[in-house]
């Protein structure tokens, strides 16, 4: 019996490998010899683990973008080094260490899970190498943009998505009360706090919050427990599983889903009809009708054989930005030159002309979307366009909400 307990406890324990403080190494400066050396682009993608659905797409789109450019820029060949983070912050940091110290990459394309990026921002900051990723920034970057000036993100902030969802739900859809189910981690809380702050500012009321531990795939206790409200604010990964069970158990309220990029192509189709009608907030869809977007969709379809999804477009746009920056420095890939260039350039992307503001956020539109079916593919129809709204601070807190007596 004692052995059973010891073995059970051992199976439950995970011990991340101990990490030492990083020893920043000087990034390569431009010299006649270095001008002929390949440009090394490191990429940290979630090829396995919970993020596997989008890691594969990011890799495919990144390779497509570099191939489209002929595998070179400013007279130098590009060497793309892709590492798998396993959707694990500990592994992500280990792989980042390998890219920076062993491979000595000039720029890193980041993964997208909030827990990974939080760990990576802190790790990469002393190295000063530009880190660019295809989704929204999280708290460390927002709270100290000067310290993290090497971090660039082309999504809206999680706050902005929460804010715009609240605006649309209250103003356009007339919702006044909301029940909430979110995964209990930064990716769930950060956008929800912004939604809650904005929704309450406008006069709405959050009637119930159910933060769900990570790893839960049987949603029935939480769905059965829902209190009456005009809408359900949903912020969970593995959404298709939730949506099927939600519909099966009655699907009581309209859904606002804060996981724009959490439902990659395969998951959208898996969710199928059970996702239709749900609203979300994000930056791109294949139904946005602009010449640059249509051109990108056509060439991607021709090369890869399918309509691009948000992960394809965002990864492609990241590469366009990197290529644009290296072009403007005429091949100088020192960190200082690249970072200066990134703050100055304007790049043509499927989202239109894109540049970064002094805070390192991409300036482009944001949309509220609705899940629809188009040519038998589940996709996003734009409902409303607006600029990305970065609030100065989000002060809403769960403990304050609980103490007001509206909590469960």
């Amino acid at each position, binding site marked *: *019996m004692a*052995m*059973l*307990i010891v*073995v*059970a406890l051992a*199976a*439950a324990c995970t011990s991340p490998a101990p990490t030492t403080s990083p020893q920043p190494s000087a990034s390569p400066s431009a010299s006649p010899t270095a001008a002929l050396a390949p440009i090394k682009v490191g990429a940290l993608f979630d*090829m*396995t*683990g*919970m*993020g*596997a*659905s989008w*890691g*594969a797409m990011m890799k495919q789109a990144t390779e497509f973008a570099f191939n489209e450019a002929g595998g070179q820029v400013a007279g130098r060949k590009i060497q793309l080094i892709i590492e798998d983070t396993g959707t694990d912050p500990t592994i992500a940091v280990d792989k980042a260490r390998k890219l920076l110290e062993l491979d000595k990459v000039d720029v890193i394309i980041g993964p997208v899970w909030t827990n990974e990026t939080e760990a990576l921002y802190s790790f990469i900051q002393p190295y000063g190498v530009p880190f660019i990723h295809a989704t929204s920034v999280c708290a460390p970057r927002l709270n100290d943009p000067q310290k993290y000036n090497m971090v660039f993100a082309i999504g809206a902030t999680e706050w902005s998505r929460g804010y715009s969802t609240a605006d649309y739900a209250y103003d356009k859809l007339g919702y006044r009360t909301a029940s909430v189910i979110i995964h*209990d981690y930064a990716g769930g809380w950060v956008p929800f706090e912004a939604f809650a702050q904005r929704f309450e500012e406008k006069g709405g009321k959050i009637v119930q919050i*159910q*933060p*769900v*531990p990570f*790893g*839960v*795939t*049987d949603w*029935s*206790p*939480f769905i*059965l*427990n829902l209190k009456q409200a005009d809408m359900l604010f949903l912020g969970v*990964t*593995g959404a*298709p*599983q939730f949506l*099927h*069970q939600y519909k*099966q*158990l*009655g699907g009581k309220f309209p859904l606002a889903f804060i996981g724009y990029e959490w439902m*990659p192509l*395969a*998951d959208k189709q*898996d969710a199928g009809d059970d996702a239709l009608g749900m609203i979300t907030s994000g930056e791109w869809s294949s139904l946005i009708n602009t010449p640059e977007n249509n051109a990108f969709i056509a060439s991607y379809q021709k090369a890869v054989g399918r309509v691009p999804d948000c992960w394809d477009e965002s990864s492609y746009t990241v590469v366009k930005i990197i290529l644009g920056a290296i072009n403007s420095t005429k091949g100088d890939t020192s960190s200082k030159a690249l970072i200066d260039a990134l703050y100055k350039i304007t790049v043509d992307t499927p989202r239109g002309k894109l540049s970064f503001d002094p805070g390192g956020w991409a300036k482009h539109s944001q949309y509220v979307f609705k899940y629809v079916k188009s040519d038998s593919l589940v996709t996003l129809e734009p409902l409303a366009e607006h600029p990305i709204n970065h609030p100065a601070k989000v002060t809403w807190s769960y403990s304050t909400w609980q103490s007001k007596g509206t909590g469960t």
Partner: protein
Amino acid sequence: MELLAVNTLNGISYGMLLFLIASGLALVFGVMGVLNLAHGAFYMLGAYLGIIATRAGGNWLLGLLAAGVGIALVGLAVDRGLLRHLYRQTNEQVLLTVGLIYILINVVRWLWAAPNIWTQSAPSTLSGVVSMLGIPFPVYRLVLILVGVAVFIGLWLLLEKTRAGAIVRAGMDDKQMVMGLGVNYGLVSSAVFVLGSAMGGLAGFLGTPILGATADMGTSTLLLAVVVTIVGGVGSVQGTLVGGLLIGLVDGLGKAYFPFYAMFIPYIVMIIILLVRPSGLLGKAQ
């Protein structure tokens, strides 16, 4: 009150699934003295094989067959190919099964990484909802309760009313004596291992309409299956059923009413029971 009743029923259906998973584990442990930690991986593999077969053949029963027979064959290969070479070295056998978990999880990740969670609907004949006290409740979860009861009765009849079952029970009590009476205990152990593995695989596929399939599902479920086995008491099918129902209820009601603490509550219950009854609720005193 209606909500409490429905949440209770939900907990019972999850508890039946835990019983299905744990009964295979408990059988093998009782007969062979080996805690087959690869059981969680068999459960996971059963889910994937079942889903793949269902999608390929368009028939849910095909999935059930693939999960049961497929994992039975995997169990046979593991037993004959690996475990028998560590005869009488139970600690080494347990460590080997730990290695198997990592291998199987990573093979599944390599082959079927995306999407991360594979969803599988219940068969159309079992996929409706019934109204339980005015609240919609999936028919499939009720069916799972019936399946659990049927498996329990089947196992009980096998162990209590057949000669083979008598040998298995005798072996759980005193392996040496059974061998001394001329019974080919190696064959008995292998048969139990194959049966236990098949049950794990079937449980994996039966659970997919509720839990989906992910490469990591085996490790978290294995832990709960071990808790169920400990709580119920090793060597007792009745104990495994009681343990499964208790942990299922505690887990389900915990998630409904104390979500922040839900992940800890089953383990707190295990500790309390072990302090009061170290051999488990219906286990034999050691």
